[in-house]
């Protein structure tokens, strides 16, 4: 399940959008014990000024991203805008049965987008 965007065009400034990955949808619900799925989210939105500048509490913008946004504002079209990408990620754990009848708990880093930024 993903947060709908208006008419397929990414709406608004760069930010995290909701994306829920359901293990049942992926067909893993028979061997994954928990969780049933997880909020992976994704980044989408434009990075023109002022969006390229961080909001309150957001990670600091890269100077280079601000520079590109400024360049694009001055001379649109060459070099393009910065990209909206994950800026802060967090891990998940998955509990499952493997093919040797073991109960396994695996920990995966960088699986959930908590924050997006212009880079």
């Amino acid at each position, binding site marked *: 399940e993903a947060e709908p965007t208006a008419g397929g065009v990414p709406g608004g400034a760069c930010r995290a959008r909701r994306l829920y990955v359901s293990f049942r949808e992926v067909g*893993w619900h028979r061997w994954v014990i*928990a969780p049933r799925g997880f*909020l992976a989210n994704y980044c989408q939105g434009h990075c023109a000024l002022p969006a390229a500048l961080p909001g309150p509490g957001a990670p600091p913008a890269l100077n280079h991203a601000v520079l590109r946004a400024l360049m694009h504002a001055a001379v649109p079209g060459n070099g393009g805008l910065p990209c909206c990408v994950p800026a802060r990620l967090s891990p998940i754990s*998955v509990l499952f*049965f493997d093919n040797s009848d073991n*109960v396994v708990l695996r920990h995966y*880093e960088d699986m959930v987008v908590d924050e997006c930024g212009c880079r």
Partner: protein
Amino acid sequence: ASAPEPPRPAIALLQALGLRDAPRGAPKARPVPPLMWRLFRRRDPQEARAGPRRKSPGATPRPCHVEELGVAGNIVRHIPDRSAPARPPEPSSASEPCPEQTVDFDLSAVEPLEHASLARLELRFEAAGPGVAPGSGWELSVARAGPGPVLLRQEVRALGPPVHAELPVAAWAPHAPTPRSLSLVLVLRPRAPAACARLVEAALLLVTLDPRLCHPLARPRR
């Protein structure tokens, strides 16, 4: 030359998660051990965020470390004993040693690159007959099947409750790769003359670290 067929997205995702192939599915009669549930609930940030015991926002678990067990690792396996249960015969007299009981663990699921950081036996014994509990307890000794030294000796105060016996990793898996199977011989000796006890449950809790899924710790922000 024809290039290998690109993996289908589901297989690619499995590989990204460090899994060789999709497991067949839950074994019919295997409950999930409570310890594994507890470790999962403590470990999964989304579970922790959603759970009633909401942790303080700053307390994300250290990457590649199993807090509750206090060792490095990002994979915890609860491996059942696959040897056939055997009923130890009663020794003819209390002075004879109790017979050995063997356990056998299939470690073939452990990848060559994984380093073992903890191997803990989860055992449960029961009295072989009525009125056998010696007040002075028991001594458990564990060795690998075949020739070789005793890996550990440990006191067991009472039968019934689970007995945890930690195998020294350096003794059985000094370096990767971990052996594909592990056969152990257990002897539970009563300290005072009494009938022998029977092993009724055995599992191995194995913690390993897969360096491929472990990012170096993030540098502190300047």
